Every structure is written in C-alpha cells, then in structure tokens.
C-alpha cells in the first residue's frame, strides 16, 4: 500500500456524484417497497390464505416506491423535463439504465397489483383478486431488483468507497431492504391490532439484520485493504452498525423473551430497523461523496494492487 501519496495541492482528483439526499431517500424507499412486494407475494402464494392482511399491507406499501420513487428520481435530474430519455435506449453497462427498466416494470405491475387489491377491498365484483395474484409475480421479481440494483448503481462508479466492495454492498442493501419490509409490515400488523404474524415478520427482520451486519463487517475488511478506511469512516460505520443493526437486534431479542409484554420492544425494534435502513443509505451516499472529494483516498484507491487480478 502506497502511503504518503503526493497530491496536487490537495485538489480533488475525482468529482463526487451530483446526487442530493433525494437519491438516498429513493434508494431506501425502493428497497422498502420492492422487498414488501416480494414478501407479500410469497405470503400470498405460500401462506395458504392465512396471511391476507399481510398481503394487502405489503401490496399497498409497495405503492410507496411506485408512486414516490419516480417522482424523487425525476426531482434529482438536472434537466427533469427530459426524464423520458431514460427509456430512450437500454444499456447493460449502466445500472442507471438497468434500474430505469426495473423501476418501470415494478411500477406498472405494483400499480396493477395494488389497484386490483384496492378495488377488491371495496367488494366490487370482478376478477380483481386474480389480476392481483397474476400481476404480483412480475412485481415481486422486479421488487427483488429494486432492493439491490441501487447498490450496483453506486458500485459501478469510480467513487472509492462505493467501488471498493461491490458485492458486499449489494448484500447489505438487499438484506437491509428485507429487514425494512419485515419491520414495516410487522408494525402495520401490530398497530392495526392484529396479533397473528408479527413474530414471523420479526424473525425475517432478525435474519436480514444479521446478514446485513455480517456483510457490513466483510465490506469494511475490503475498505481497509483497499485504503478507503480512516478514523472518520470507522466512526460513521460503527454508529450505523450500532443504530441499524445491534440496537434493533437487541430490542427484538428482548421483545421475544418478554413474550406478550415485549410488544412495545418489538415495535421499537421495527422502528429502529426502519430508521437504521435510511441512515445506512444516507451514510453510504455522503461518505462515498466525501471519499471522491478526498484526493488521498482516491489516489490511494487507484493503485495497481487494487486492480482486479485478471486485468492488472
């Protein structure tokens, strides 16, 4: 590792992504609603008809990403009136292009599923339930994509922090999305007075949070070996791990052992999971932009020992 790298008067060597907090919020909501659709669809297909309320809530929750997602993305364009150029071509080398199509498919089929569910809930006669059941399958597939393509979007750049650990960042984003969906749906279940499936959703969230923490640990190892790690990064990621990982896990565990009396703790765990997911996306975006603006980090990252072995 080449330490003490000379810089050009400390002038930045890279330009940070011109993304505002809106993008981090989109990344979070895309994961939340995409994973909700996936969870709802699996609950509908494999739940044996016992999870109707969960399915309904999951379908409505996925409308958040469907409705707000595109608005947020268009807001962050610097020439928003040309948003439709996103679908002008398809480019497999660009996660921004891949994601535009994932979002389009997700939006169309989630809207169909949620719309049909809405009409069905109003007891209007028609094949609404079956429209939802069919449309939910492509929506759920695209929902899986919505949960993780945003990691590919950040990783496929020259921004040191994002580029240093592409695979583990995707695992982190995916598991954080599943945890958020589990937490949000569990809250919906408990706050509406249902007492059936909160525990199952808690279990899903606990599994997802554990995977997320493990992936975070492995990505930090990548950051260290690739020279994009310092005191500032350590402080940021330790707080993120604590807030969005260890705190909800502890609350879930306590809530589980207290049984019925632990309901408030389980709710607090769900809330911490949701807040932690958003905090993780914000931290990833801002810490990434800071790593691009710091010439020591970017020049240290762009050293031959960090090249993929096949291409060095």
């Amino acid at each position, binding site marked *: 590792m080449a330490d003490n790298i000379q810089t050009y008067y400390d002038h930045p060597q890279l330009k940070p992504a011109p993304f505002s907090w809106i993008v981090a919020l989109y990344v979070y909501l895309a994961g939340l609603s995409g994973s909700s659709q996936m969870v709802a669809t699996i609950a509908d297909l494999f739940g044996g008809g016992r999870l109707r309320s969960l399915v309904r809530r999951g379908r409505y929750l996925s409308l958040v990403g469907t409705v707000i997602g595109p608005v947020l993305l268009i807001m962050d364009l*610097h020439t928003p009136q*040309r948003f439709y150029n996103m679908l002008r071509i398809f480019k497999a080398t660009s996660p921004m292009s891949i994601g535009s199509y994932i979002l389009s498919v997700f939006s169309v089929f989630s809207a169909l599923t949620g719309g049909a569910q809405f009409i069905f809930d109003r007891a209007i006669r028609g094949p609404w339930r079956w429209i939802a059941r069919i449309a939910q399958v492509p929506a759920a597939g695209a929902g899986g994509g919505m949960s993780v393509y945003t990691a590919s979007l950040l990783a496929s750049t020259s921004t040191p922090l994002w580029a240093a650990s592409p695979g583990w960042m995707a695992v982190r984003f995916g598991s954080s999305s599943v945890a958020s969906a589990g937490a949000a749906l569990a809250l919906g279940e408990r706050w509406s007075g249902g007492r059936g499936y909160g525990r199952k959703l808690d279990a899903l969230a606990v599994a997802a949070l554990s995977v997320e923490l493990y992936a975070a640990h492995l990505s930090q190892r990548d950051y260290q070996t690739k020279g994009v790690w310092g005191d500032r990064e350590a402080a940021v990621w330790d707080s993120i791990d604590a807030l969005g990982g260890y705190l909800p896990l502890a609350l879930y565990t306590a809530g589980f052992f207290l049984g019925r009396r632990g309901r408030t703790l389980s709710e607090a765990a769900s809330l911490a999971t949701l807040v932690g997911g958003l905090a993780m996306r914000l931290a990833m975006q801002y810490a990434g932009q800071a790593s691009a603006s710091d010439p020591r980090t970017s020049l240290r990252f762009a050293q031959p020992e*960090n090249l993929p072995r096949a291409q060095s």
Partner: protein
Amino acid sequence: MQIHPRAREYPDSQFSRPIRDESELTAGVKIEPGKSYGFFTDTTRCIGCKACEVACKEWNALPADSVGLTGMSYDNTGGLSASTWRHVAFIEKIGHGGGRATEMAPYQSNWLMMSDVCKHCHNAPCLEACPTGALFKTEFDTVVVQQDVCNGCGYCVPACPFGVIDVNLDDGKAHKCTLCYDRLKGGFEPACAKSCPTDSIQFGELAELHRRAAERVQELHRLGVESAYLYGTPGAPGATGGLEYLNAFFLLTDAPEVYNLPRAPTRASNRVMPSLLSGLATMAGFAVAAVALFAGASRNGR
C-alpha cells in the same frame, strides 16, 4: 515540422473562407471519419502559457470560472470542470520533501507543467454509464455528450475515473471536452492543439501519435531524462482496469499522482455484474427463507 506544400496556396494573412482540410497544414494529418484521433500531450514541452485553456474557452464559447487567485502556484484554474476543458497544472519541485532543491533537472527547470484534458478513453466509463445515450463515440473515435439528449442525471460524473466530466448547474447538462468535434467535422485541428506554441499538445491519428510518443520517450532517455514515460498508452499506467488505452495520452516525468492522475484507474462497468448478481442472490436467499417461514405459518396456523 516541415511546411506542407499546400501552404503555398494560401499566402494571404487573412482568409475569406475556411481552408479545405486545414489540419493537413497545421497538424500534418487529414481528418477522415472512421479513423482514430487523439491528443499526445508531451509535458516536457509545456511552458505553462495556458494558450490551450484560452483557445478552448474561445472556440467552445465557455464561460469564465471564478476570477481569482488560488494561491497555489500559477494554477488559478484549479481543475477541469463543466466549463473548463483544458487545465494547465503547475508543480514546483523546489521545496518538496522539506528541503530546497540544489540542482536543476534538464527541461522545465524545477517546474512541471501539464495541460490536462478529457482522456477520451477507449472503453469510456462515462459513456458506459450514460443511461440516455447522450454520450456517444463519434466517427473520429472520440467521446462526446449530445446536449440535446442529456437530461442531467449526473451518473457520468462519478463514473469518470479521472474526475473530468461534470454537470453544469446553470443549464443542467453534462459537459466535457469534445475533442473539438465540430472542428474535426470541418477538417480543422482542435483549438488547443492548434494554439499550442511548443507542440506540447499534438493532435493526430492515434497510431501515429503512439509512434511519435515512443520515439520522444527514447529521445528524452538519451538526453538524460530517464524519468520520462507514457501515461495512457496500451499497457502503461492510466490504461489499466479494462480501459485498454486513452485516446488523449501524456508523457510524464514524475509519478502520476503528482499531476493529479490516478496510477491505476478502473472501468466502472466491470462492477455491474458482480454487484448485481450478488444482490440478486441475496434476494433469492431471503425469498427462500420467506417461503419456509410463511409455509410454516400456514401449517402451524391451522
């Protein structure tokens, strides 16, 4: 450089119309679609006059940046931006490492000067990242943003491993050096290369530039500048990580980092599949877990 025989056809000092294939007279190369063109920037010839910066701004009608002094050397430009497509870097070698230099290296005394520019990468990460197709490869093998297509998503900005392309917040589009696409179409040498008084910036066909650059390195080695090397030619620093080669390449005499250049840049699109596939595998795993969880719910719930 010898004077082209066709130059005798134009003895006037003022012209009423453009000279046909003018680049033949000024750069010794005819510009034809389908061939690869680029810049060879020989930093040992740079005198830091910034004529390239001015010519670029003039021809491309680019606005002035902040008019002020940076307080760091003679470089008051700072770096490339949406409205600055050539940038002359100044590195003073005196006083580096705590002590004063007591001897002068051949060429440039103790100043390093380099006119930086968009590298027009062979596998350009900005182009590969662009979701609208606004960025494209021209018939001259250069990389250009189509201003009437760009919607200002800004994804090309972090994709560039050299920190070149940027979004102008005034017009909301991405901008960078076009290698004077409009001039090439008219048979003119790019403005910066034409204005360069020392031929530090040379425009030409890439193969010819590679040949000329290799010769120049040998010549410099012979003259005692053993530190001279190429940046951005196939297999050299700057052409790493799947970029293959840079159509705008450089002759340097110090470490790339000294000029604010990355030693081993990478092609961002190589990370698309690893990240996407590991993400989708994660989701597949959670889908299986959810199936087990909910199928269990239906059995136990009854």
